[in-house]
């Protein structure tokens, strides 16, 4: 029962954040690229004001997987880095904490581009 509730929370919160994305697709003229940019920036803002991290603790993957979760990670990483390294942390924090994910996306993307053939549309 405990485990069901845990996954239900991840499903509900993640689904809700994605549904907001769909509302933006259907009711505004925002392109997918603009929506992704907005979600990351929104995540930084929500992380900065201290709203998003509690949501990650509550919903786990439901809050960390949407792109707002990356924004929050950037905010948390920046704050931690400033605490440890002072002024230098302002620059090193955001990408520093996301380094593995960004590197993975770049490397896997490159590998896929080399290995696979484009599909007929």
């Amino acid at each position, binding site marked *: 029962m405990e485990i069901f509730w845990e996954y239900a929370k*991840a499903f509900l919160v993640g689904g809700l954040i994605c549904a907001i994305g769909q*509302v933006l*697709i259907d009711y505004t003229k925002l392109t997918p690229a603009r929506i*992704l940019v907005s979600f990351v920036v929104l*995540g930084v803002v929500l992380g900065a004001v201290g709203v998003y991290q509690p949501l990650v603790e509550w919903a*786990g993957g439901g809050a960390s*997987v949407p792109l707002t979760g990356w924004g929050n990670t950037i905010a948390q990483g920046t704050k931690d880095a400033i605490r440890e390294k002072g002024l230098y942390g302002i620059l090193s924090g955001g990408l520093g904490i996301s380094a593995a*994910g960004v590197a993975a996306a*770049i490397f896997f993307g490159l590998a896929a581009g080399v290995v696979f053939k*484009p599909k007929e549309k």
Partner: protein
Amino acid sequence: MENLTNQAYTEMVKKASPPSKSAKNIPMAFLFGGLICALGHFFIQMFKQAGLSDEIAFPAGSIALIFLAVLLTGLGVYDKLARHGGGGTLVPITGFANAIAAPALEFKSEGYVLGLGAKMFSVAGPVIVYGVASGIIYGVIIYLMGAY
């Protein structure tokens, strides 16, 4: 009918047209997005059980999803899912991974440097630019305020 005003006509069109696409799109986005996040949660839990700290288990969960999304993009499956999932396949980190892998494939024919290498970032680039920039602005603010 001749005296039909623009406004009345709009009303009529609204009544005659089938229920808006959103009635289907939004629940589908909820479903796909929820499932992807639940899968991500599963990966995170597995990494935690394998003994990784939260600090590594969370990004590792995202990386597992990124790997899966890139693979499905290469196999031509992710685009098919995205046709149904809409925002549900765009907003999760898998959408970001797809935005990198899809142009990498598509523009390979234009060369490995300015084709594949550059076009990978046509969507991911702006996301990184504005994400990093907002983080720096936040950092400057809390640094100046001493609120860290």
